[in-house]
Each structure stands twice: as structure tokens, then as C-alpha cells.
């Protein structure tokens, strides 16, 4: 008995040690992630002159002064009164939302086709789809620009420019969506559709009624990731968005004008960007987990 007691104490101590180490690691990563955001949020409610104050190097106590200021929200209100951020947010939402929906709709069809079809050279087709996302944006921008002007998407009209952005976003969302969702479809047992077909469903109906609902978590996860990618885009939006369809990232970068960097505005806009996307983060995790565990359960 005595021996076992010893073992358990040592084991307990060891476990406590690792547990502490684990918490320290989580805490460190927590700080690494949140400190920049915290500083961003704090500085966005300071006047520039306050935001530009840092203590002397090595003055750790002085760091507490980060919290001593009189808050002002004018950077936020300026975004909506002096700039037209409401419209830019709308542009961002329309462009990235539509592109993601298009990408996921077309993409789920293609991903399903790839996962199920016994098509010769299916692997090459699949890789080709992925490879369309690989070309450096800069290298293909000029020919894309030609296509876009040819389609009249760069005329000064909000809807045309938005359409252009949606098309541009689709170029990188669609290959991702296909590639990402393919494995979800592969995980769904063929028997289910076969059963549906025996019961009298057409291919398309079997897809719609049986496969889609089952793959839904994966599709939602793909949708949200597409949303994030296109929501974050800068280079396409800056070239194709023009004035009329300016998106949030472009508008924010323009707060850095020739004569000054509107730090307050930029940081305020960054803070604004984070908050609504938080919920997406939870959603994407939920559906990603659901989508991925699906396959395992079915094994």
C-alpha cells in the first residue's frame, strides 16, 4: 500500500506541474492575441495626442497610464459622418456575402460531382480547380482588368462595380469552396443516395434532399471561411472596387492619406470590424466541428 501512495503523490505533483504549464501557455497566447486588440480598442477612443503617449522604455509602472485618458468616440462618429462607412460596410457585406453564396452554391455542386463522379482524370480536374487560386494576384491583374473593362464592370456605377467585386471574389472563393467541401461529400455514404434513388429520387433531387442537408455543416463552414477571405480582401477591392463600391478595408487604408495617417480612424475601423465577426468565429467552429465529426460517426 505504501508504494502506491507514493506513486500517486508523485503522479499528482507531475500532473499539477503540467497543468500549470498548460495554463501558462494558454495565458501567454491569450495575451499575445488580445494585447494588440486591446491597444487597438483603447487607442481608438483616445485623442491622437493621448494615443501617442508611451512611457519611457523600462518604465513598467508607467504602462498603467495607458488607461488614463478621457475617452472620445469621435473617431467612430467621424467614420460615419465625415466618411461614408455605413455605405462601405454595406458594400463589403454585399460583395463578400454574394460572392460567398455564389461560390458555395456552385462549389457544392462541383464538390459533390468531384466526390461522387467516376470521371476520368478527376484528380487533375480537382487540382486544376485548386490551381486557379494559386496565380499571384498581381500577375493576373492586368488581363483581369481587361476582362472587367470589357464587361463594363469598371464604369462609374455602384452596381457594376459591386458586380465586378463579386466576380473577383468568386475567382478565389469558388476554388476554395470546391476543394474544402469535397471531403465532406466524400464522407457521406453512397448508400444513402442509392436508397433515395431506389425510392424514386432523381440525381438532382437526391442531392438536394439527402446529400445537402447532411453536408450542411461543412457547407456552412465553407461559407463562413469564404466570407472571411473576401471580407478581408484588399487588392481586388482596391483595383476593381472603384469609388462607388469601396469596401471597408480599402476605405480604412484611405484613412492613411498623403498628409496624415488617421490612426484613430484606422484603429476604430479595425475595432468595428472585429466585433461582428466574432459571432462568425463561433459559428464556423461549431459547423466545422459538426462537419468533420460527421464522417467519423458514420464509419
Amino acid at each position: 500500500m505504501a508504494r502506491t501512495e507514493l506513486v500517486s503523490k508523485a503522479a499528482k505533483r507531475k500532473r499539477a506541474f503540467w497543468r500549470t504549464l498548460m495554463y501558462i501557455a494558454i495565458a501567454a497566447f491569450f495575451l499575445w492575441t488580445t494585447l494588440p486588440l486591446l491597444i487597438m480598442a483603447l487607442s481608438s477612443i483616445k485623442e491622437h495626442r493621448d494615443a501617442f503617449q508611451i512611457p519611457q522604455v523600462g518604465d513598467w509602472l508607467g504602462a498603467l497610464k495607458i488607461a488614463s485618458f478621457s475617452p472620445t468616440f469621435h473617431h467612430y462618429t467621424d467614420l460615419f459622418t465625415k466618411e461614408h462607412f455605413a455605405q462601405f460596410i454595406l458594400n463589403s457585406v454585399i460583395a463578400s456575402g454574394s460572392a460567398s453564396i455564389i461560390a458555395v452554391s456552385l462549389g457544392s455542386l462541383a464538390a459533390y460531382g468531384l466526390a461522387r463522379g467516376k470521371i476520368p482524370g478527376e484528380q487533375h480536374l480537382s487540382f486544376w480547380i485548386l490551381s486557379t487560386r494559386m496565380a499571384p494576384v498581381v500577375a493576373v491583374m492586368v488581363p483581369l482588368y481587361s476582362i472587367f473593362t470589357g464587361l463594363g464592370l469598371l464604369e462609374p456605377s455602384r452596381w457594376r462595380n459591386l458586380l465586378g467585386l463579386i466576380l473577383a471574389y468568386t475567382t478565389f472563393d469558388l476554388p476554395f469552396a470546391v476543394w474544402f467541401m469535397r471531403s465532406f461529400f466524400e464522407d457521406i455514404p453512397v448508400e444513402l443516395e442509392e436508397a433515395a434513388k431506389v425510392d424514386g429520387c432523381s440525381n438532382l433531387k437526391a442531392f438536394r434532399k439527402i446529400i445537402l442537408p447532411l453536408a450542411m455543416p461543412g457547407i456552412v463552414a465553407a461559407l463562413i471561411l469564404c466570407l472571411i477571405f473576401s471580407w478581408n480582401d484588399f487588392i481586388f477591392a482596391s483595383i476593381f472596387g472603384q469609388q462607388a463600391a469601396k469596401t471597408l478595408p480599402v476605405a480604412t487604408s484611405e484613412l492613411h492619406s498623403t498628409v496624415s495617417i488617421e490612426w484613430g480612424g484606422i484603429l476604430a475601423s479595425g475595432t468595428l470590424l472585429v466585433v461582428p465577426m466574432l459571432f462568425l468565429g463561433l459559428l464556423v467552429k461549431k459547423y466545422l466541428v459538426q462537419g468533420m465529426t460527421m464522417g467519423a460517426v458514420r464509419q
Partner: protein
Amino acid sequence: MDVTRREALKKIGLGGLVLVGGHIVKSPLGLTQLAHASDDKKWKQFAGSKIVFMSEDTPPTAAIKSKIKPFLELTGIDIEIIEEHLDIVAEKVGIDVRGRKGAYACYYSQDKPIGAPFYKHAEDLRKFEKDPTLPKVPDGTGSDVWLHRFLDITGRFYDDPKIAAYPYDNAVAVMMYRKDLFEKYSPNFEAETGKPLVYTDKTTWKEVLEICKFFKKAKFPDVKYGIALQGREGWGGQLDYQRVSYANGMWLEWDFDDYFGAVNPGPCKWGDEQSIMTMGNYKELMKYAHPDSLTNDWSGANTAYITGLAAMQPQYGEFAAVVEDPKQSKAAGGRTVYDLCPKGDPSWIVGNGKAVNGTNFGIGGIAINHWAKPELQKAAYLFALWSTSHDTQYMVLKDVGGTPTRKSVFEMPDVKKAFVRATAPMKKIKPVEMDKGVMVDKVPLMPNALTYGPILKGIWKPDTVVGPKVPKFNEYIQIQTSEIQKCVAGLKSPKEACLEIKKKTDRLFRV
């Protein structure tokens, strides 16, 4: 060419001429009066058309954008003004004109980064001047109505008589320094060097370096560094370096007339003794300057200055508006004095080169896109005329601190008064506490005008340097600045860096 223009005007006999200097100019509300009865139809002929102006996001453009209504009333043209970073403007204009698309009927054409490579894609403005169906503005657009040779700088390239752009705004470098700090620490400086701490138009770069060393060593609580430079890769760095290199011996990369530039500049002078010496001195300056100077562009340097980290900065006049804003700037409230850029120092000059107050600039022009449809070109020309007219520039100046290019604006009595802080018209603001107990409750109405004194002095030869107008300007400055940075970072010696620039530049121009 000037003669032909005048002849044309005479033939048409426009009322506008009669009114020059008359009541239109004097009346600040006279914008719409541009459309004199006989001209009204000409201004209105493109009503309903839609054009795009691709512009850098300079204060004048922001002001014009917010005050676009008079133009709409005058012409009925629907204009969309896109404001972008200079980089992106160059990018978009470049893609557009090289792709021969013409999505932007008119665009902002900085003399070197956009004008030099793309001027052939701009329509010759003389064509529109000659066109009897198009209106005129009071004073006209001849080269003598603009500041000294501004039309040459933005509009003329190489051997081509074509006028590619009208001067739209200007950014001329001046020295900004903290008078309060200079006065406060003058005794310390004197104790150390035996000289008072002052800055005048006679102060040389070598003396500036001395001041920098003093500030960096002293570690005063309210200022850390002597100077904030702007050595960021690209145009910012090129201009920053040029101010030093030109001041010392009027050194230029090539010997061509810098007002017009050259398509094939021939072998460059990089690697000569003067260039190596200047490179070494610039490195020394950087060593004692604000540490981010190598990555700061103009706005970065200005931030360092207005946050009170640097006592001096060579900066473009239009930044005065930010510097004088007490809400953002510790250098506001009369603490900043504007003067010419530093002079060269005899000991920094090889041989008997001349020491000058090296002043450089970027003069933004407005150009008409060659690839746009002819009607849109004409509509865009109307905008170019209007936006560079006296009234518009005067309006912009009073609105957000514009940067006029027309002489007549500088001659307005209230503008003249604004040159000097003592007489400048002020406006009341909500009091802002600068330091403990120091309140600022008014700011200059036209802050940029405070820099016009040195600017009007600096834009003349020999002090002024227009910079290398060469078609491959953009690649050239990349080569130049990245080697300068390597030298400053200690990765290369000044000589190595200069010779590398020489090698790469000559290769670039196929010498």
C-alpha cells in the same frame, strides 16, 4: 506656343479676359461667375456626361470633392472623384493607360512618378486650348500664370512641346522646426558647442547633423531626436536623399536640364566622389535621426515630429495644416517655424561645387487620358480648367489648407497676410491643452500659407531641384533607395552602394 494660345484667345475675344483681375477675382463667391453669359453654353455643352477623376488623396482634392456643387451647377457634368494613395493612383492609372482602356477621363499626374513614364498617354492640352468650342478661365492657362515654371514641371516632358498636365497642387519641401525647443535648449547647446541653437536659411546640413547629435545625446524629456527624416523605400526616400545631395554641390544624377528630363539620360554620375561623400554624410545623418527614419515616409516623419519626438523635419508645405492642429500636434500653437531647407556645407562638397538650400517637390498635375472617349476628354478638360482656376484654388485654400499653383492666389491680400504668423487671420477653436496649463484656443485660418514664404523663395534656381524626369523613374528610385538603405543599415559601404546604383541604373537605361 504661348503666342498661338494668345492669338487664339484674341480671335475669340472672350469676355473672360476682360474680367481678369476684375471683380471675379476679388469676389470670393464668384465661382459660378466663371460661366460668363457668353461662355455659359460652352461650359454647359457636356451636361449629363459622366467622368471619373483619379486623384491622389491630397487635401485639395478632398476639398474639391466636398465642394463639387459649383462645378455641377456650372457644367452639369457628373464627376466622380476617386481619392487614392499616390501608389495606387500610379498603379491604377498605369494599368488603365497601358491597357488602353480610358476608364479615368482625367487623372492626377505627379510630375515624376506618373508624368514621366505616362505623359504620352495624356492628351495634349494645347489641343483643347485651341478649340474654340471650349471655354476659357480668367487669366488663362499660360505658363506665366502659374508659379515659377510649374507648367514646365508638370506639363512638359523631354523634347516634346506637348503640355500634358496643368499644375493642380504643389508639395514643396521646407524645413519645419520647433522654435520653443530651440530657444529652451539654446543655452545647453551653446555650452557644448559655443554656438547658439538657431535655425536660419544659412544653416547647413552639417550643422543640422550637429544639432541632431546634440539632441540625441542630451535625452531631454520633451524631445528625443533632432530630426525626422523620410527614407522609406521609393519616392519618399529619393526626395529625402535628394535634398541633401543637391544642397551639397548641386549634384544631379545626370546633366540634362532637370525641368524637362531626358528619355535616354546616358551614363549616370553615381559613384563619383561627390556622390560617395554625400552617401556617407546621409548615413551619418540617419544615424542621429529618429530611428524609424528609414521606414517613415512623409506622413510617418510628420507623425514623429508632431508627437514631439523630433525637433526638426524637412517636410512638404501642405503638412502645416496637420502641424498647426493642436488636437493632433504638440508642435502647434506657434511652436513651429517654417524656413528654407538646409544649405549645403562647404566641407561636404567636393571641389568647388556650390552650396544651396536644396528644395524639391512634387507638383501634382491634372492630365486628360488619351484613351478616354473624345467627348469625355473635353468634359474632363472643363474639370481641369475649373479645378485649377483661381477661384477654386482660393476656395480650397481657405477650406482645408490647399496648395495653390496660380500666382494670383498668392497675391490675394488675405493670403499674403497669412504668410506671417503675426498677421495671419486666425479662427477660434475649442481650447485644447497642449501641455500643463498651456492652452491653445485659435489656429491659423490658412495654416499652409505659413509655409509660402520659404516656398516662394525655394522654387527658384539654384535652390530648386526638379529631379530626374526619366521614363523609368519609378524603377530608378527603387534601385537608388534600396541601395541607400543598405548603406545606412551598414550592409554596404557608401562607395559600394554608389557603385551598385551606378551599375544597376546604367543597365536600366541600357547604357
